[in-house]
Each structure stands twice: as C-alpha cells, then as structure tokens.
C-alpha cells in the first residue's frame, strides 16, 4: 500500500515528464500501426494471386521478428541517427508479420462461391477486391492489427535505448538508479502506464471493429 502511494506521489511530482512519455509512446504505437497496416495490407493484396510471392513476403516478415530486439533498435543508427527514426523502423519491422499473415489468411479464406458469384455478376477484379474481398477479410486483418498493437506497445519501451523517448525512459532511469529511492517507483510507473495504454488501444480497436464490420459477418 505504501508502495502504491509512493508510486502516485512519484508520478504526480513530475507531470510533464509523465505526459511527455505517454505522448511519445502513443505516437510510436499510432504511427507504426498505421504505416504497418498500410504496408502489410498492400503487400497482401499485391501478392494475393501468387503463392510464391505470398510465401516470400511472409518469410521476409518472419525474419524481422527473429532479429533480437535489442539489436534491431541499434543497427539502423549508422543510417538514420538516434531518436525517433531507428525506433520507428524497428517497431515497424516487428509489427508487419501479424498483419500480413492475417491479411493473406483473410483473403484466402473467402468462400469460393462468393467470389464466383461476384465475378459472374460482372464485378471487375478491382470491384471484387474493394467490395467483396477486403470487407470480408477485414475482421481477420483487424485481429492481426490487434496482435501487432500489443507487440508495439511492449516493444516501444526499448526506444529509450536509442534516445527515442517513450515510457521506456522511466524503466531505464529506474534501472540505472537501483537501488536508490524512487527507482522501483520509476520502473513500475513505466510498466503500468504501458499496460494502461495497451488496454486503451485495445478498446479503441474493439470500437473500430464494431464500427467497421458488417453485422452480417460479426
């Protein structure tokens, strides 16, 4: 209990830093997810007709996930410097696979009869894509986006290693000052705020799901 009170006092005594950390962290999540969703969905669409292209793009996205995260944040520094850019690139590469995987699965899972009738009624292949395939694959794509969002919220804490800011700053500061006063408070604050952010983002994605998915396929 005392620890919780201490945690609150710690947070309330430096509101600007807390706000800054939250904004930076949210900024990573939002910018990375929007970019990753765009790239992954476009890749999924472009590769949908070729099994080989699908496999290649999936392998590439998997390779990114196997690179140790500590390294991935650092290896781009020689090319883009410190701060936002290397963190953004690293998080982007991490978040591609779940969305890409689900885009491909979603597009593959559409009932053959639906596609046959769409084509048979005279929809062009662009119309089939926009009016039938994407709306039907959307719930699956969105599920992938949700997985990616959780991944990014957690990993964005590493941005602090390359001077990228975010809630990881609190964790790193705490670690550096162990076992001085307020060090655990700092670590816990960074962790808890990440969790709260994860929950909020999940709720937003849920709302998006309800708003954009037709009642017919919910």
């Amino acid at each position, binding site marked *: 209990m005392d620890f919780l009170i201490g945690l609150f006092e710690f947070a309330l005594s430096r509101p600007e830093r807390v706000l800054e950390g939250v904004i930076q962290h949210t900024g990573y999540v939002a910018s990375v997810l929007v970019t990753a969703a765009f790239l992954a969905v476009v890749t999924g669409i472009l590769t949908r007709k070729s099994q080989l292209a699908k496999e290649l793009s999936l392998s590439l996205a998997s390779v990114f996930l196997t690179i140790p995260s500590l390294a991935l944040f650092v290896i781009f520094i020689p090319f883009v410097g410190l701060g936002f850019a290397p963190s953004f690139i690293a998080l982007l590469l991490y978040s591609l696979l779940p969305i890409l995987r689900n885009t491909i699965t979603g597009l593959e899972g559409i*009932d*053959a*009869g*639906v*596609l*046959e*009738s*769409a*084509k*048979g*009624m*005279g*929809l*062009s292949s662009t*119309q089939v894509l926009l*009016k*039938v395939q994407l*709306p*039907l694959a959307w719930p699956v794509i969105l599920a992938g986006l949700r997985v990616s969002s959780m991944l990014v919220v957690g990993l964005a804490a590493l941005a602090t290693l390359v001077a990228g800011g975010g809630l990881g700053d609190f964790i790193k500061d705490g670690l550096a000052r162990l076992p001085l006063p307020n060090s655990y408070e700092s670590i816990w604050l960074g962790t808890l705020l990440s969790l709260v952010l994860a929950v909020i983002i999940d709720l937003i994605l849920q709302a998006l799901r309800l708003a954009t*998915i*037709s*009642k*017919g*396929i919910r």
Partner: protein
Amino acid sequence: MNDVLIRLENITKSYGAGMEPAVNNLDLEVQRGEVLVLVGPSGCGKSTTLRLINRLIEPTSGKIVIDGEDVTTVNPSQLRRKIGYVIQQVGLFPHRTIAENISTVPVLLGWDKKKIAARVDELLELVSMDPDTYRDRYPKELSGGQAQRVGVARALAADPDVLLMDEPFGAIDPITRDRLQNEFLRLQQDVKKTIVFVTHDIDEAIKMGNRIAILREGSQIAQLDTPEAILAHPADEFVESFLGSGAILKGLTLKKVSDTELHQVPILRQPVMREDALKALQDSPDQVGLLLDSNDKPLRWIDEKAINRTSQPIERSGRPVTVDLQPEDTLQDAITVMLQSSAGMACVTDRRGKYLGCTTIESLAKLIMSDN
C-alpha cells in the same frame, strides 16, 4: 419459335496439350424463352460449357453469339451484367443485406435509388419472400432454400434475357428442392427467360427442361431433344443407361391427369336404396361405385359386399375416399394415389372438390402405350 438467342459455334476448351479437352468442338443453340438443361455424368464438361457462355472460362477456340452479337471479344464484366448467374453455393455476399445483395447488378449499372428499391421489393415478392421481413436481413439469417430464392432474385435483378444456372438446387434438401423447382417453373412462366440449366440429376432435367442435352465426356452431345422424346426414344446405349431403368416412370411426371381419359363408375347418392344400388353395380362392368354428397364431393367407395352388409346403413359402409386428384396433378401422383386406394383407381375432382371421373390403371397404360 425458331428464334436462336445463344449460339455456341465450334467451341473448344482445352487445358493444355496432351490433355483431353474439357469441351470438344461443341455446337449448341439455345432458343429464346426456353429452358435448356445440360445434363450428364460428373466431369463431362457441362459446368465448363455453362461458364463459357458468360466467359468465366475463355474458350480455346470457337465463337459464342448471343442475340446476334459475337460476345467472345466484348468486355467480360459488361457481358456478365447482362446475364443472370445462379450457382449451387448461391454465393450471397455475407456482409451485405438481402436488399444490397439483390441490388448488386443494378448498382453496377447505375440505376437510381428509388428504382432499385422498388425492384428489390418486386423481386422478393416474385420469389415468395416478404420484402418487409427480409429486405434488411443478412444472408446468415436465411435457410438454404431462402438463400437460393434470394440468389435467383439477385440473378434476375437487372432483368437479363439470359439466365445461367449451375446446379442451383443441388445443395438443398429434397423436399425444399421440389418446392423450389415448382416455384421456379411457375416463375419462368411469368418471366420467360432464356435459361441454360446444368444438373447431374436426370429427374430434375426431365422436370425442368423444355429441351435436354445429354452430354458425355468432352461435352459431346449424346442426344438433344424434348424430355418426352428422349424418354421415348433414347438415341443410344449411353443415353439409355443415363436415363436409368425407370424411364417410363420418369415420363409419368411429364403427363397430367387431364391427359388421360376419365372413367365413369356408377354413382350413388344419398339416400341410397339398397336395391337400386345393387342394380347399378350389377349393370356396370365395375366392381365398385362411388357415393357422392349433395355437392358432388366423393365420399366412399361402395362395393357389393358393402351393400349386402345389412348391419349398417350403406352411407356408412364401404371405404372412405381419402385422397383425390386434380386434373393438373402428374401421372406419378395418380399412380401413388391409385396404389393407396382400395378401389385400384383414383377419383378426380375439380379444385372445389366436385367429382369429375376416375383414373384407372388401364387409362394410364393406354396413354403410355400411345407414346411408344
């Protein structure tokens, strides 16, 4: 009547050298307003042939002419909007309401909203579904039979001249299938579309087709004729074996009770006098007479034994008439009723139940023999 709407000229579809072509040099003409059924064993190329017409499959060689226009070179999407297409899996768009599904092609064609809404309601009525109930539902809320009704409505939405149907009732349970077939035949009497209908079920072919093309491997026409002619004169052994052993029985679904000569049995009316009844029966070649009520509705079969059983009034002896036939029933129905009836014949009534006469096995046999 000799008005050809669709003509396939020398159509071949092959999937690479060394493989037998799926469709080999097919020539086929479809008359305006007819239902032409393509029927054959699986793998004979009947679905491929159907899909060549709306160019979901492109022919390797040959020409397809619809309404005088060579359609092998036009934009396939534009072509398909003018051809209704119904498939076994139905393929309704699950994320769209019934109304949105039906209006797919009209929207593509740029109709205005009011016209589309009116058309959707009209079509739902046409396929016996209440527009207010179903308009805003989603496909997942429909039964298989309802879904295919919507499938047919959707195919008819932009009022195409041609309808292509690929085993439309193949995935539906037998009872619903029978009902949908009947509804569809009634609907076709109103809309008079030119329909190419694919099935592997010879009974369905006989029921639905104005003409039937029986196909063998490579979409080769084994016989193309009216159902009656094919049943009466199968062209070769292949057709015969495809028709199966019950060809004559199948033919019974094509004929109606009104085609037979009705037989008149002695008629008894209330109150029945025992002596009169006995005399009437003895004067007639028939073993039974029919008791009618005051509205000429058949009540009971009365035979001599029933008259002689003095323990109860004649009105309550004999066997009750449980089922009767109407003139528009098929001979298959007639046989069923006859077999159930104790008298070995079945009485025929008009729609109000008024007695017209009886069908007998003899009259049926006479009709069947007259064909052969």
